[in-house]
């Protein structure tokens, strides 16, 4: 899994840190390092920026996997500088922000915007492929997700805005339904495109979604 983030504008970070003179910075060694948004270099860069604003950075660390429960260990090891700071500035995706805020009572402030869960297609190119809708249709759409890749999340074929295989919202973006059509045709499964898809159930797992996976013997089928 890749959680794709982008850096918030520094003005926004500065605004959120108003009133906090001591700051501790946490980065993430996994996704945010790969996207160059919360790795060592970016942490040091923002540290310098905060110092230029005359704030004190009581310490910083790049947690190997910020969303992992081992984060608690890393935070315990840095307990003192964390406690000395008025807040924690987190340069990880929102999962990391959530994880970190369970281990501190200090205000936790995100320095990144979490954009999507995606794949790296080639170095530096990330694409959103799934919005975790809870009712996967990939088996009928040749492995291309219309809920995610189509700007309107259409289930029954392309809208009238499709143009030479491109999407109406962006001439450089492929129309998901043209891609689905081409691949289904290649597979000799165009009948799947002719099939009517009823309206989606947007409440398959009402928000906030939770899943409990039994670790006991009885539930080995993975049912939840």
């Amino acid at each position, binding site marked *: 899994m890749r959680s794709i983030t982008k850096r918030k504008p520094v003005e926004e970070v500065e605004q959120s840190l108003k009133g906090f003179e001591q700051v501790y910075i946490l980065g993430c060694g996994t996704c945010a390092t790969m996207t160059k948004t919360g790795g060592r270099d970016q942490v040091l860069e923002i540290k310098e920026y905060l110092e230029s604003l005359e704030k004190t950075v009581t310490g910083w660390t790049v947690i190997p996997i910020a969303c992992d429960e081992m984060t608690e260990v890393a935070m315990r090891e840095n307990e003192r500088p964390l406690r000395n700071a008025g807040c924690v500035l987190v340069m990880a995706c929102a999962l990391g922000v959530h994880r970190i805020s369970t281990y501190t009572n200090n205000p936790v402030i995100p320095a990144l915007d979490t954009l999507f869960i995606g794949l790296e297609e080639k170095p530096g190119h990330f694409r959103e492929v799934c919005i975790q809708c809870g009712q996967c249709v990939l088996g009928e759409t040749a492995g291309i997700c219309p809920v995610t890749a189509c*700007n*309107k*999340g*259409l*289930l*029954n*074929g*392309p*809208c*009238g*805005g*499709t*143009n*030479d*295989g491109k999407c*109406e*919202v962006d001439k450089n973006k492929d129309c998901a*339904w*043209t891609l689905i*059509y081409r691949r289904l*045709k290649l597979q000799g499964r*165009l009948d799947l*495109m*002719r099939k*009517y*898809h*009823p*309206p*989606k159930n*947007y409440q398959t797992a009402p928000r906030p979604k939770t899943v409990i996976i039994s670790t006991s013997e009885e539930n080995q089928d993975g049912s939840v």
Partner: protein
Amino acid sequence: MAVSKFKEALNSGKFLVTCEIGPPKGSDLTQMLHHVDLLKYRVDALNVTDHQSSVMRFPSLGGCLAVKERGGEPILQMTCRDRNRLALQADLMFAHTRGINNVLCLTGDSILVGDHKGAKGVFDLDSVQLLRTVRQMEAGKDMAGNDLEGAVGFCAGAVVTPEATPIEPQMIKFEKKVEAGAEFFQTQAVYDLDKFAKFMEYARQFPVKVLAGMVLLTSVGMAKFLNANIPGIVVPQELIDELANAGRGRALHKGIEIAGRMIAALKKDSICDGVHIMAIGKEEVVPEILAKAGL
């Protein structure tokens, strides 16, 4: 159940004319009402657009009521962009009770092409699902399967883009719309009548009426803009040249002539069942187009 005058016209076998009315941005309806009065007895029905191009405007429902009150026959354009399934069903019931008997089911443009770019695009349903919803509500049930106290009744239509490339996905969707209960189609603008005639050979297999979309060309720049920016519209170079050669200040006049000529040709060769004129702000000249077409 109230009978749609437009449906009667569809079944009459005559060559049909519908025209598009764009509600204003704001509450001053003067110009819209002027267009309604100008056209209400000249065409078989008036479509009222629904936040066209995702630009926030006076609502389609309000525009349709105005058409109805003034004696015209409205077609309610309904997109899936701004309302979830509860709101869409509610509006269908409301429209029905107020004598709006025709609905055009559309997906709707992306929020991103409009003037409220940060808005949430709803798209809870798509056009095919909306058509089926209309039919289900006519059968006295809501989408959840509950009984309605009083059903609705509509002459329901949809759109198709005959010049899309590739065309096969459009055809598949067209057929899904037919299966979902579309009775008529108003097409995206067509300018290449030979190509359109080919599309009609295909469309004729289905028990639906097709009205060819006719966007009035007003200038060379506008024609080029359509080609560059509007998916599925191809204005051939010959027509652009014709506009260019019309001389200073004569492009609109030429555009009217072209539209009239094309409508006449479609009618003469019975290529389709009618035309849907989109004059985009130049509704004044629609009577002239009709006159040029001999209608």
